[in-house]
């Protein structure tokens, strides 16, 4: 649709907390959380892969739970706390999950990595994984077309083995 025309269509007020920062926004009801993050807010760490909930590249944490940002209309998230990869760490001070991904070379092209990292944090929050098989199954919502799965599973296995340092980092 023509952008100028689109701009004149009605919007809805929306309050969100993104990476700890409050945002008072006006959004079109058809804007997905993914398009809001990447477009208006220029938080392009979250990636658009398939845009249909099939690849997991857009995984973010919504009120602590990992979800596909491409399938959430932003307007339905009034009051929610969103965490994206930008909210996890910095190049100087990486999040423990980011560190362990680097240590294990758990990516090749890196496009799926923000989603893999957010998904890993979701998996750790959920607490249902204790074996490598659990990791493989509970990370199946994140595709990696480079096929870095073995190293991703290695990285997460190390995180599971070292839950204490993860909990400390989360506090």
């Amino acid at each position: 649709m023509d952008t100028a025309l689109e701009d004149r269509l009605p919007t809805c007020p929306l309050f969100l907390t993104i990476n700890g920062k409050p945002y008072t926004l006006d959004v079109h009801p058809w804007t997905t959380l993914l398009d809001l993050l990447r477009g208006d807010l220029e938080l392009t760490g979250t990636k658009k892969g398939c845009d249909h909930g099939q690849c997991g590249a857009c995984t973010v944490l919504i009120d602590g739970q990992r979800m596909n940002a491409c399938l959430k209309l932003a307007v339905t998230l009034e009051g929610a706390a969103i965490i994206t990869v930008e909210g996890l760490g910095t190049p100087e001070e990486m999040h423990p999950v980011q560190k362990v991904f680097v240590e294990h070379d758990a990516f090749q092209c890196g496009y799926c990595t923000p989603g893999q990292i957010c998904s890993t944090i979701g998996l750790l929050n959920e607490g249902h994984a204790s074996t490598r098989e659990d990791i493989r199954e509970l990370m199946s919502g994140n595709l990696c077309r480079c096929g870095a799965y073995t190293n991703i599973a290695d990285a997460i296995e190390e995180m599971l083995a070292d839950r204490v340092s993860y909990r400390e980092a989360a506090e």
Partner: protein
Amino acid sequence: MKRFTYTRSETVADAVAALAARPQAQFLAGGTNLVDLMKYDVARPDAIIDINSLPLKEIEELPDGGLRIGALASNSAVAYDARVQAQFPLLASAILAGASPQLRNAATTGGNLLQRTRCSYFYDPSTPCNKREPGSGCAAIGGLTRMHAILGASDKCIAVHPSDMCVALAALDATVEVVGPDSARDIAFGDFHRLPGDEPQRDNTLACDELVTGIRLEANHFADHYTYLKLRDRLSYAFALVSVAASMKIADGRIVDLRIALGGVAHRPWRDPLVEAEYAGAPAEDVTFQRVADRLLLEAKGLGDNDFKIPLARKAIVRALRQAAGGTPQSQTIKAIQ
């Protein structure tokens, strides 16, 4: 995506009234199916009624020992609920066999019941589809039919219902609670989803002005002998080619009560209570299981590409009944099939 207006309802009565006022509106809960269909222009509501604020998230114990699951309880909340896992492990197992953790966190119980088929022709508005556009024809018939129905199809539609959760709910004889503008009613799970017949646009018997508010499960003591066996093109995060939800009660080596529902084979979870009743009293052993499989698949018809589903379903049924009888349910994590 077609442009639409947005309202948020806070109560069930408000939501139902909002739908009555806008017949082209649709309720939106987790969005994992509807938002996707809107992106493909398959669903084109002119108004969205956001029902995520309705008080329908609870899982409650019922006086008879069963459970009531609110329509907005997420698939994850249900699958990992300790009471569901203890009393209805078949349901927990089936949910964990479906989708991905991200999708299960967002998807709701009511939405899972109402999800549309994944027939690729249904998803492609450039092709005819009687489900998407009644009377336009069916591009799947004569097309690529590998994923399509082997039971209960019609000459109007050969699509299959995609849910894993619903296959377990069919085997467990759940009850669907719905509310309309004037009254509330219960729908037996077996009466909820329908076969395509001449009206494949209707997936279920919910009236167009009704809202699913929850499901009820009666205490049924099938937790000892059950399994959910799902066969698919990859080991996780794929729709079923064939799935089997099986549970039984066994005494002295004989089947006392048998429940078996199939997924991936028909327009609704496929169950035949007459066949189940026929085998009450039969020995819980392979010969019986093979006969059950033959009876359930007696009317099965392949369309060419999906012919393989018939022998696959036969073997899956026997294997699932063996797992259920042995008290060795299929792990949804370790994928080797015992």
